[in-house]
């Protein structure tokens, strides 16, 4: 893919060159160049994990880059913290708003800079007046004396934007701003953004909603796997071309062959109309014995919540889960485990492993009676079981009593696998099974998954890596904004097809 540059223009307000950043186990950005011109809306797109968030945090001073430079208005700059960038006029509106819910709108807008009277005390009148001014200029009608916690999320977002505007703003970065607002509020936001553009502000707009990009952006940059793929004027691309740029990568031969049609196998798990707050809306699907079902979708589309709700880690508001014929209107981890359903969580350190315990203890955790002899735990039985699993999954560790905190990510994941595979023999819900795992271990895990399916397990795989879904799933569901947007079977599963369904309309 050739890298296309917009004409090199000296009216670039912000310019970053050669930015690289890596975290333990993953190279987040690889020598990325990016620039934003004043009076222009520049969109930034890419899959989950493409590096958009990291790039934003480097530009705004929350992270420090490993290599590369940031140039602002022609001068090289270096941020020692977000405060520096803010003072220089770079403001980010993150998806998680940085607000103080108990304080009023006016106080939030002026949180670190309250206007004072001549006597040195806070001038609430002036503060309210000025906050009101800013908000009106931005086109919002918000009661500045209200507590922020009483506002709608859209209004809260407006408050944060207003806060950015009490100073001078050179660069405004918006990270998924329309994730939480709809309809008329989106229109309003766009009006304001266009006004800001006219005023010469450089706006960087990160979003998954491609039609918005076509609506207001002038330029678009595509990131993929930490690399800048292209920067083009919006007029020169269309939706399909964007998607293929976001997704296209050479296929490598790392997946075991897929099974074909599983539609005659018995249904082991069925979810009917599951609702989880605002995160999952009336999701229904079936899972058959021996099949590997993928669950794809963007971050925040509700996949993890659905899996957790089925397992019982999260309560669901309505709906049913049927396991091998038995119907449950409420699930709990204990009943799920008893019914042979296991959940390998997305966050293995936070929700999966007991980090300070041994491999053996972690493996035995869901069903302690396996290692009991009489009323007491038998170390012999415990270690015996663990030793078997270590051999079976080729876990690289000195012994069964090794504390899991000392293992590599791949081996930790294998410990979790062995825990669930031996305890729950019907259904395995795997949430991001290869996250933070090196390539070698990934291949092993794919092999394991396929083998388990062959042995009769019903497996649900949640993954943000489209390649994975395409590679190992017999069938895939795609979630979008809490609902199941579509299903792809067999050879119909492709990265483009998934993306097309995953992106909001």
């Amino acid at each position: 893919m050739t890298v296309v540059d917009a004409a090199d223009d000296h009216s670039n307000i912000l310019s970053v060159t050669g930015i690289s950043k890596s975290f333990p186990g993953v190279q987040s950005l690889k020598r990325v160049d990016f620039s934003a011109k004043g009076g222009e809306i520049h969109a930034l797109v890419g899959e989950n994990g493409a590096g958009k968030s990291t790039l934003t945090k480097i530009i705004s001073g929350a992270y420090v880059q490993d290599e590369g430079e940031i140039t602002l208005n022609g001068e090289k700059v270096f941020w020692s913290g977000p405060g520096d960038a803010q003072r220089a006029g770079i403001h980010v509106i993150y998806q998680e708003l940085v607000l103080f819910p108990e304080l009023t709108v006016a106080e939030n807008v002026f949180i670190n800079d309250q206007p004072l009277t001549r006597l040195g005390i806070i001038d609430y009148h002036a503060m309210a007046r000025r906050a009101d001014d800013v908000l009106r200029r931005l086109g919002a009608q918000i009661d500045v004396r209200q507590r922020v916690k009483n506002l709608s999320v859209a209004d809260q977002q407006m408050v944060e934007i207003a806060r950015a505007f009490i100073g001078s703003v050179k660069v405004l970065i918006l990270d998924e701003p329309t994730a939480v607002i709809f309809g008329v509020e989106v229109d309003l936001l766009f009006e304001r953004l266009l006004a800001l553009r006219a005023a010469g502000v450089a706006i960087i707009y990160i979003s998954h909603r491609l039609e918005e990009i076509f609506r207001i952006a002038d330029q678009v940059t595509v990131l993929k796997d930490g690399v800048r793929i292209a920067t083009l004027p919006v007029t020169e691309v269309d939706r399909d071309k964007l998607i293929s740029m976001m997704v296209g990568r050479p296929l490598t031969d790392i997946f075991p062959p897929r099974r074909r049609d599983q539609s005659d196998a018995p249904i082991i798990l069925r979810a009917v109309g599951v609702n989880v707050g605002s995160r999952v809306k009336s999701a229904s699907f079936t899972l058959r014995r021996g099949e590997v079902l993928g669950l794809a979708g963007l971050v925040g589309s509700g996949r993890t919540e659905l899996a957790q709700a089925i397992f019982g880690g999260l309560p669901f508001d309505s709906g049913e889960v049927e396991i091998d014929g038995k119907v449950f209107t409420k699930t709990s981890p204990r009943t799920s485990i008893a019914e042979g359903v296991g959940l390998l969580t997305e966050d293995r350190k936070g929700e999966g492993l007991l980090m300070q315990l041994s491999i053996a203890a972690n493996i035995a955790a869901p069903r302690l009676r396996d290692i009991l002899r009489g009323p007491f735990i038998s170390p012999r039985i415990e270690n015996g079981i663990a030793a078997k699993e270590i051999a079976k999954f080729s876990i690289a560790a000195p012994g069964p009593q090794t504390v899991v905190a000392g293992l590599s990510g791949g081996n930790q994941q294998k410990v979790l696998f062995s825990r669930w595979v031996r305890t729950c023999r019907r259904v395995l819900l795997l949430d991001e099974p290869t996250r933070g795992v090196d390539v070698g271990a990934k291949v092993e895990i794919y092999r394991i998954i396929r083998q388990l399916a062959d042995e009769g397990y019903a497996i649900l795989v949640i993954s943000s890596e489209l390649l994975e879904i395409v590679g190992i799933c017999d069938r895939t569901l795609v979630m979008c904004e809490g609902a199941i947007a579509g299903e792809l079977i067999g050879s119909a599963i492709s990265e483009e097809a998934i993306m097309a369904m995953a992106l909001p309309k």
Partner: protein
Amino acid sequence: MSTTVLAKPKLVSHRVSRVVERNGLLLFCLLLTAGAAIFAPGFRSPNNLQNVLTNAAPLGVVVLGQCLVILVRGFDLSVASVMATAAVVATSFDYSTDWSVIPILAVSLVMALVVGSVNGYLVTQRRVSPFLATLAVMIVLQGIRFAWTKGAPSGRVPELIRMIGSQAIHSVPINLILLVILAVFVGVMLERTAFGRKIYMVGGNPRAAELVGVNVNWITFLCYVLSAILAALGGLVLVGYVGSVDNWVGRGYELNSIIATVMGGVSLSGGRGSVFGALVGAFVLTEIFNIALLLGFPVQFQWVVKGVVILLAVAVYLRADRSR
């Protein structure tokens, strides 16, 4: 959503902090004992040693309970009050026969059960912080006790309890033997039963424990109940040692037991530590006070020592904890 990652320099290398946490206390204990044997007048006398052990035993019993609660990420400030209440119970019955020990035990245990249940309920069902919950319970219990004794507890302790609390067999204090028995019981429970394993799981990662089917609330609740029961037993042992009861029996034990447990390597963030470590902590703490006295420091100096020890323990252990 990704979070801002700010690199935190490790203050102490991983290996060193692990060694410190595992063996530091034992090393310190040995050093202290050796140093005291050399420098502190009278430390070496068998009488003094026996004294220290007898002194440490009641604390040890309470520490066993505190250990459980701290392991599940809480702590119990009501132990001192429970001890005192048990002491009051011990002196409230007809002391002329030894059989009065039975009602004493029964009443104390029931009292402990109730107190522990209230603590457990507040912490698990009402989501009150352990600090506030156990502190409030402590005060309420104190009030009940004051009302019952009209502010002036009195009475004699039955002979059996006196004997257990202060006598020795072949210069081994009986209350120490009792402590060892209880310690073995609690220790085995922690290390070798499903219940104990679940305690470590709940303390180490309550969410992960929940997701493997553990009833986190129930386990936590039981720990508070056990803590109260052990505190009551500790109170009986203490009153046996002291021989009489007053308003301030057990004063300071809530703080002392927490310090001893933390010093013993039981992490305040839960899921880590052992009964053995906590007991060594109890012994070391008592030893420190003993040495201070032998060196001529006034009794009040204990307070200063306590405060400094907490700060040091916090600085060392919680730091080591963080660098994980």
